[in-house]
């Protein structure tokens, strides 16, 4: 009896895997398999605060959201006006400084993309994405 139940459970489990496997094979070229940001490239609010003046805060959100409110001292750097804003950020940067990039929430992509461009194109070290973004910052500062 026990053996039969286990076998049925196994068959059921195998069946439940089929749609997923089928979809993965069928859409293998169409779905973006975006990997999560590695933990080494993220920083918590508490850790970033501890860095004090040795950190530069970057707001990757669109201009209107930055104008509404932002982390005190943060510099606006978004991809809508990248060429115009990048020199302003670079003027504030110096070797040894850590860069903390944030966007609206954990789920937004803007911070990750700005951080990636700073690492790849400008080849800056120590660029981190803020965990939870602006939403988390606001919660902590209520």
């Amino acid at each position: 009896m026990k053996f039969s139940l286990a076998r049925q459970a196994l068959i059921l489990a195998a069946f439940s895997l089929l749609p997923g496997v089928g979809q993965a094979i069928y859409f293998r070229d169409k779905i973006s398999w975006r990997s999560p940001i590695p933990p080494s490239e993220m920083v918590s609010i508490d850790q970033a605060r501890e860095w004090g003046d040795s950190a530069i805060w970057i707001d990757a959100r669109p201009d209107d959201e930055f104008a509404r409110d932002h982390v005190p001292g943060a510099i606006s750097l978004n991809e809508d006006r990248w060429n115009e804003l990048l020199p302003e950020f670079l003027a504030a940067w110096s070797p040894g400084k850590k860069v903390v990039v944030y966007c609206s929430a954990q789920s937004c992509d803007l911070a990750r993309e700005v951080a990636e461009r700073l690492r790849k194109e400008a080849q800056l070290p120590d660029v981190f994405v803020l965990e939870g973004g602006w939403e988390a910052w606001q919660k902590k500062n209520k």
Partner: protein
Amino acid sequence: MKTHILTLTLSFIFCLTARAELKWEQTAVELHPAHGDKQAIGHFKYQNVGKTPVHFKSVHASCGCTAAQSQKDQVGPGEKGEITATFNIGERTGTQIKTVTVETDEAANQKTVLTLKAIIPQELEISPTFVFWKQGEKADPKSITVHAGKDFSVKHIKVSSSSPDFQTKVEETGEGQFKVNVQPNETGRLIASTLTIQAENSPKTFYATARITTAPTAPVAPVAPGQKAPAAPTAPARPPAPTSQTH
């Protein structure tokens, strides 16, 4: 035992046929905007293959740069429609992946994630876009590599510095590949320059920045009350891209 397997198989098939009433033609779209395009628009078509109307609860884009719109709030049985996702390219480069999350009141599969992938053509690829010298460091030249992007043919490039404090020299290192040597006249002062890079016969402008930065290990002199710390110079402002060009 045979009955059990038959029951399982039938319930599996039933589950498959009873899933989402809204059937999407595709949930992932790949776009190839032309050089200079401002927007890339993806169309995600659907049909209600169920027997009851489906209501959209929300259509939400992952990024402020993408606007997602549904043609209607309710889709009757058999009706077709589409969600339009408009991605503003701005000054983005390379492959961009944006998602739109659609929530409906369907009994199953209430949330569908639509993926829009835009591959933005890049005439020139520049690496790095920033070169710097620490204050007091030897004023040796540093190089920037420039090469023609995929599907572009570039024979010559023009490079100019916004400041006479930096000299630039272009070397051709291969077909469509160049090395730009940048050298400051001195590194004693905090100076900066915007380097303008253009492919010959192309109106599109690319930028890089060269600057002398403060040395990280140098102790910071305390600023007396009422005095301001000396500010690092900003590279001269880059002109906003003309309407026909994006970077």
